[in-house]
Each structure stands twice: as C-alpha cells, then as structure tokens.
C-alpha cells in the first residue's frame, strides 16, 4: 500500500511507503495519527500548515459487508479541535481497491481549478476550468463527463470554496449523486482553503486488496454478513424506514429536540417521520431502501422523488429531517427535502445547518416554522455567500454569538444533534466529552438509552451513563478505523461473536494475529491521541461542558435538566489521557 502526499503550494505529488508504525492503522486511527504527528498545533485550520487526510478503513475495498466508510481528518475550523469526519459513498472502496492507505493534502492555494485524479497509476494534480462556483451536482456531472461515468467524485460546493465553517465534502453515492458527505466539522472549508475543488477516483484495473488468506477472509466475512442480517435492526428495520424511523421513537420518549431544544416533544412529529417519508417515497416511485456504497447490506439510505416522480434527493437522514423539522417547527417533508438537497449541493453539513437555522429563528432572523424563510436563506443568502449567508454557513456558535443568543445548542463549537441531552443523558455525556465536539456518532448511547440494544440504561437518570458513553466512544473509534459502517454496531452490541469475527477478517486480510482486546486497545489509543492533541490545541476539561441552558432549563415533558457534575464528566477521559 502507498501513501500519497500532495502539496498545493508546490504542486508536487509524492508517493511514500507506509511507515511500519502506520501499518496497523486505517480510517480514523490513521487520520488522527497523521494530524497529531504532522500538523503543528499552531496551524490555522484554514492556513497552509493544516493538512487534510483521506483514509479508507482497514477493511475498505474488500468483500467485508458494509465496509466502505471513509475517514477525513484535519484540524476543524468549526471546533478548533482535531476532527475525523466519516462518510459513506463510493470513495473508500475505490481507495481500498487501489491500495491507497492515505491521501494527504498540504499547502494552500486559492485556485478553484485544482482536481486530484487518482487511478491505478497514482495521483495527479490537474487544472480543470469551469468548476469554480459550481454546486456539487453540476460539478460531479462535469467531472464524470471528463473522467468517465464510473469514477467516484469528491467535491466541495460554494460553501467550501467560500471557507464557510459548516462546509462539507460531498462524496458521490452508487447512483452518482453527491448525497453522501464528510459533513461534520467544516472540512469542506479546509479543502476550499487549499484551493482543491475535487478529487476524482477511477478504479479501472485497480489491483484490488492484497489478501493474506483469501479463504479465511471469505469465511469470516460471510459469517459477519449473517450476524448483521440476523439482527432485527441492521438486518431489517434500517431498510424499511431509514434512519428517520427514530422521529416517532424520540418523540414518544420525550427526547426529540423541538423548537431549538425548548421541548422534547413535537406535536406534528409524525408529519416528518420515517413512516410518512416512506409513504411519500412509495407513492412517487422512489426507493425506500438504497445502499450508499458498494457492498453495503443494510441499505438505510433512500431515494426521494419530487411530486412528478423525478429524483430529488437521497440519503434523507433522521438527523436532517429533525434539524430542519422539529427543531425549526417545520412539518413539511418536501420543504425539508429541499433543504437537504440545498445542503448536498451547496456543500453544507445538514446537522450544523439545521441547528443554525434553529438558532437563527431564536435570534429572530426568521420566525420558527417559516419554511419559505429557510428557503430564502439558502437561495438568496448562503448560496450567494452574502454576509448573512456566510454567517449562517459558519454554524450555530458563530450565528448565536453574532446575534446575542444565549440558547445555542453546541459543544466545542459544533451543533448538537437530534437527541436532547437532558432526556437521553448517555448521549449527552458523549456530546460533552467527545474529542469531536457534539457528535452523536462518537458514542451512540441512544442504543442502551432508548433502543434496547446492547443493554438498557434509563435515559432519564445519571446512573451508568458515563461508563456507557466511555465504552461506546472507545468501541466507535475502533469501528471507525475498520471502514465498517457504524450501523454494524447494532449487531455488534447484541452478538458476542461479532467482534471476534471482525478480528478474524482483519487477521485473514493482513496476516496478523489480533485479539478482541487489541481492538479495544486500538479504540483507546485513538482517543488518547485525539485527546492529547486537543490539549496541545488549547482544550481543557472546561471545554467538556454542556451549555448553561441545558443545566438550567427543564425539558418538557419529563422536566429534566442536564445534571452531571464536572467530576462525573471528567471521569470519562480520566484514564484516556
């Protein structure tokens, strides 16, 4: 395997052997290690000394089920901390098949013409005219026209080009739509700061992953597929209603953040539920189940058509539906689909942007429930990068600060996702303590708190939450390094054969002899690297806190607050530093 290093200042591309110490690392383990090893903590996130690292997971490119997740690492311009932003789509499998361990992008040149072309011969920097300012849909079409219809395309839209700190990096899905993204943390702005508009990956005649023991791998991956498919969530539920099935559950449990986290219940929640979405999709001839990357067997994504039955958007997630729905008091599925498409096309994180809209409503920029107002903010402000548009594109914290809003749901500058931390306390601990800023995927305690997966921990009480969050943060860091979709965790948490089977796959592929304990150790090691690097960037324990209003305001219907002491929150990382 090779590491490719591109410097946009010198326009040089170097091919490097993988250092021995990096051999056992992939995905998040590798991106975080490279950032920690190579980026001076004094580097401005949008300056030439920050780096952007793309790494497929250890299993990406193989036949392992749902193993096509990509990690993108950097210093985040949104949080100011280390960031691993995780994306589906086609890129990771292509990188894996091309035997690319990592692609490191350095330097900074405001150009807008730079395209990295990755294929069996290596990586080349090309200048492509006519891309600057294009949305992700059009940019992808142009690049496929030039480089072939089956290439994987990663692009930034206008938000990234304008270095808005909620900007994402779009990754094309199997239908060539830019509906998958490294969304969180504003890494699209980092790519924009480097003057890099696109990365095109062509896997034609790719050598494929080198397999130490093909038969053993086949056996283990087959077993792992069965483990995933046998679980009622990963085997069936995800493909029936997508992730938005959670709208009604969180609403019932009183943890669906409504009206910028004022209540845990939304009286019109069902208008935006997974059930309603699937009804609309079926009526219009879309697809209720869709895989975002080749080899995915869970199919939680979907294709959402417009009223005329034409493709409109894809990958219409719970988080997105919530952020613009209950959070903004908007109960119109087509309006939310429009915002989802805007985010995909302009290149914005849907969570950060939806949370920001809630803050904008709190600030009085528009009223809660004003669906036309949100549309106008996308079309007339953000897309055109007006001063207000840039402000909104910079996320919840900046918007709240600018308008003097005290109720801003963010931790470390990153907007809080779709589970209220007061009524789903385990995930609240994750929001507060994660190295990534508020991030539900970093330690998804919703499993045991709400879904009765991997045990049961009362979501309204503090007992057991810090331990639950910690264990999940460790496990997640490890999974994020394999390239496996985090949704395998539903089966992994309930089936004790799952982790040993993942280990069997890794051992068969690399000819090593890991044990399940080594996987846990890897997770811990990643968190330590990230935590210690964040310290160098100036973070302290005081940054692991929830905004004041969550501690003071009682959330209906349960009338609960976020009531963890500083000591309780600090216990999560006490032996991970």
């Amino acid at each position: 395997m090779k590491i490719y290093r591109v410097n946009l200042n010198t326009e040089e591309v170097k091919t490097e052997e993988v250092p021995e110490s990096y051999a056992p690392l992939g995905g998040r383990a590798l991106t975080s290690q490279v950032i920690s090893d190579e980026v001076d903590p004094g580097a401005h996130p949008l300056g030439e000394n920050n780096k952007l690292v793309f790494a497929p997971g250890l299993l990406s490119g193989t036949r392992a089920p749902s193993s096509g997740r990509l990690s993108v690492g950097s210093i985040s311009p949104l949080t100011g901390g280390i960031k691993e932003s995780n994306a589906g789509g086609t890129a990771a499998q292509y990188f894996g098949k091309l035997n690319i361990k990592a692609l490191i992008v350095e330097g900074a040149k405001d150009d807008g013409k730079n395209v990295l072309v990755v294929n069996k011969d290596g990586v080349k920097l090309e200048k492509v005219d006519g891309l600057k300012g294009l949305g992700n849909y059009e940019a992808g079409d142009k690049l496929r026209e030039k480089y072939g219809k089956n290439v994987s395309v990663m692009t930034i839209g206008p938000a990234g080009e304008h270095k808005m700190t909620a900007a994402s990096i779009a990754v094309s899905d199997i239908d060539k739509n830019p509906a998958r993204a490294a969304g969180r943390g504003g890494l699209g702005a980092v790519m924009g700061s480097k003057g890099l508009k696109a990365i095109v990956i062509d896997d034609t005649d790719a050598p494929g992953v080198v397999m130490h023991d093909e038969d053993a791998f086949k056996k283990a991956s087959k077993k792992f597929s069965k483990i995933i498919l046998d679980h009622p969530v990963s085997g069936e539920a995800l493909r029936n209603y997508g992730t938005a099935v959670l709208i009604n559950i969180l609403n019932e449990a009183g943890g669906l953040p409504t009206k910028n986290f004022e209540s845990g219940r939304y009286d019109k929640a069902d208008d935006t539920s997974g059930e309603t979405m699937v009804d609309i999709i079926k009526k219009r001839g879309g697809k209720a189940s869709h895989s975002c990357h080749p080899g995915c067997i869970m199919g939680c994504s979907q294709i959402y058509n417009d009223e005329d039955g034409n493709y409109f958007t894809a990958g219409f997630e719970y988080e997105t539906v919530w952020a613009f729905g209950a959070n903004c008091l908007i109960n119109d599925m087509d309006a939310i689909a429009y915002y989802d498409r805007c985010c995909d096309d302009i290149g914005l994180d849907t969570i950060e942007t939806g949370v920001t809209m809630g803050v904008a409503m709190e600030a009085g920029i528009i009223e809660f429930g004003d669906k036309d107002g949100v549309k106008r903010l996308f079309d007339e402000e953000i897309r055109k990068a007006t001063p207000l548009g840039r402000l909104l594109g910079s996320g919840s914290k900046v918007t709240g600060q600018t308008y003097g809003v005290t109720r801003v749901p963010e931790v470390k500058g990153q907007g809080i996702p779709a589970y209220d931390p007061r009524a789903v306390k385990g995930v609240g601990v994750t929001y507060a303590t994660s190295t990534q800023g508020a991030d539900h995927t970093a330690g998804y305690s919703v499993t045991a708190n709400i879904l009765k997966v991997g045990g049961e921990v009362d979501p309204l009480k503090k007992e057991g939450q810090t331990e639950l969050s910690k264990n999940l943060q460790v496990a997640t860091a490890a999974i994020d390094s394999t390239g496996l979709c985090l949704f395998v965790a539903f089966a992994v948490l309930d089936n004790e054969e799952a982790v040993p089977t993942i280990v069997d796959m890794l051992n068969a592929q690399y000819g090593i002899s890991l044990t399940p304990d080594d996987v846990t150790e890897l997770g811990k090691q990643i968190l330590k690297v990230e935590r210690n690097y964040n310290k160098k960037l100036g973070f302290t324990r005081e940054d692991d806190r929830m905004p004041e209003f969550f501690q003071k305001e009682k959330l209906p219907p349960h009338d609960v607050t976020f009531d963890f002491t500083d000591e309780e929150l600090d216990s999560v990382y006490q032996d991970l530093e």
Partner: protein
Amino acid sequence: MTVEIRCHATLRDYLPESAKKGIYQYELKGEKNVREVANSLELPVEELHLIIVNGVQKNLDAPIQDGDRIGLFPPVGGG
C-alpha cells in the same frame, strides 16, 4: 377509561383502518396492563420491542390507567 395507543413502523398495519397515522383511542375493557391491551388488539406481542408509556420505557406487564399514552415499536434503529 381510554388509553391512546401509538403504533409505529410495521406495527401500524395491525391497527383498525380508522386509526389515523397509527394513533388509536382504545376504550379499556378491563385490561390491566400493556400485554392485555396488546392481546385485545391482536398485536404481535413478540414484536413489541419498545414499550413507552407516557414517555417512559416499560415492559409488557406495566400497569395502565385511564388517559395513558402507550407508544409501541418493533426493533428499530438509526442515527
């Protein structure tokens, strides 16, 4: 004595046609817990993975009373 049954995902198909969007006002006929209500409504008890009574996770044997809101879900997930 009525309870509000809220069936979601695949469980909606088991409710009478009149139950709009999976919400059904059920007049109790002496049932004392969730299991008895589920049986009366011929809901597939083995698929009732999440039972949320007035916003709180319960099990099939949870007692019920007039005005309760009972959310029922099969195994589901997301994120």
